[in-house]
């Protein structure tokens, strides 16, 4: 009995440390006062509503959505064939290729953003949006390859051969037999990529330009000027968005297998 209580206490304390701050954020955003505090000075929804009134938040939200959705989809379009080749073919230099494709996870984001800005974006005069789009795609690509590889590895190779013997060409064998069976892996990769891209800061730090900022960068900038509870409210809303997506994914796909 004593052991169970000790064990519960340990779990509770850890969770309090990990999740507690998030709960505090939710309540800090509910403040009726004008300064950031916990416990809040009275309760109201005004800061949650105020978030939607901030023009720059609206713009950066749209940009972040575009980057997260567009970047992840692009990463999947080039990542799925790569994962397929890595899993099925005996390609020369496979190990090197795997390292190259995984590089964006290992190299710190701020370095990537800076290098991209200085040596590609500025010389080639890319627009800020294009630069952010390329950077976010590159950042998400390793996750796409990894997650899709994992689900390809769980799939027998002979079903594709069976499909060919029943009359498919190679492309048909892929779309009719492989794709339907790795669908949940692809969806998981999309969600993981979306969340990663949406929450990404260091890569976007240098690349964001005046008036073109991702939402987290915009929040950082806003925080430097004011300490009102609207950032808390926005943080809480974004957290709910992420959690909602992941929760649905978990219920439908067993998402945590892929994380």
């Amino acid at each position, binding site marked *: 009995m004593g052991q169970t209580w000790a*064990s519960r206490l340990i*779990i509770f304390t*850890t*969770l309090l*440390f*990990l999740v507690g*701050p*998030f709960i*505090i*954020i939710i309540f800090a955003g509910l403040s009726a006062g004008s*300064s*950031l*505090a*916990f*416990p809040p000075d009275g309760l109201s929804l005004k800061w949650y509503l105020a978030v939607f009134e901030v023009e720059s938040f609206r713009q950066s939200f749209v940009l972040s959505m575009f980057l997260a959705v567009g970047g992840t989809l692009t990463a999947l379009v080039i990542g799925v*064939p*790569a994962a397929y080749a890595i899993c099925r*073919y005996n*390609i020369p230099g496979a190990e090197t*290729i795997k390292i*190259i494709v995984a*590089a*964006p996870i*290992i*190299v*710190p*984001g*701020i*370095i*990537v953003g*800076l*290098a991209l800005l*200085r*040596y*590609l974006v500025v010389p080639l005069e890319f627009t800020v949006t294009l630069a952010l789009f*390329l950077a976010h*795609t590159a950042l998400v*690509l390793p996750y796409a*390859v990894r997650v899709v590889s994992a689900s390809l590895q769980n799939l027998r190779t002979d079903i594709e051969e069976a499909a*060919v013997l029943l009359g498919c060409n190679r492309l048909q064998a892929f779309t009719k037999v492989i794709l339907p069976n790795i669908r949940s892996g692809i969806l998981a990769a999309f969600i993981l990529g979306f*969340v990663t891209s*949406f*929450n990404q*800061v*260091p890569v976007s*730090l240098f690349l964001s330009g005046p008036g073109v900022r991702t939402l*987290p960068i915009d*929040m*950082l900038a806003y925080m430097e000027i004011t300490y009102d509870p609207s*950032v*808390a409210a926005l*943080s809480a809303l*974004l*957290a709910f968005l*992420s*959690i909602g*997506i*992941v929760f649905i994914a978990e219920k439908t796909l067993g998402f*945590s297998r892929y*994380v």
Partner: protein
Amino acid sequence: MFQNRTEGLALVLPAAVFIAVLFLFPVGILLSEGFKVGGEWSLAGYADFVSKPLNRTVFFRTLKLGFLVAFVSAIIGYATAFCIVNLEPAQRGRVFGLIILPLMISPVARTYAWIVILGRTGIVNKAIVGMGLSDSPIRFLFTETAVFIGLLQLFMPLMIVSLISAMENLPKDAIPAARVLGASWLQVFTKVILPLTREGLVLGGTLVFTGALTAYITPAILGGSKVLMLETLLYQRVNVSNDYVSAGIIATILIVMCFGANVVLRRVAKA
């Protein structure tokens, strides 16, 4: 059917080229900047960098915080993971969900919460002043402690998740068997759990250590310019002083440390 190597290469090529052009190429040039002074190859930039006390302080602080966060994560992680693994399956799923939940939340939001908690008018200070432990609020923000706490909260889930999956692979009867043979709990930990979960510990340790080294938001928000870490120092060097030699050097140090941690720790896991 998969014998055609050119076909395979053609399929990976777009991804590999994309990464090579957008990633390896620019990062490579950035790193090379550290080895140039006035357009000439030279190590003078490094000598200069090392000679400045601030740079040394920041370097050792980053390293120290990285180790500390990894170490404390491991201690709390073992205790928590062990308790979670012994829960009933249904409860275990729920607790596991709560552990990975912070990973899905924006690091900006997660770090921001600590301002509410540790700020001048935060709960901690309210409690301290309220209980009469101190007359005026204590400064927590912009200290190493605040950065440490923020990093710990940010990266500990990675350690716990790694340790849980390592512990799930523990033979079911290993611990009771050791207890029956007369081992104390400390001996059970050092002789049974630790050796059998070493790979999980190393994986988690690598993720936490490199995560802490390369975090930007936490030191930026909770440390500010008072408690610089390598990433925030790099940002300052570029944005404030346009110093790309230092930027190249810091980037090189960060990458070497990250790869180094990956390689060394993987060796340790295998040994």
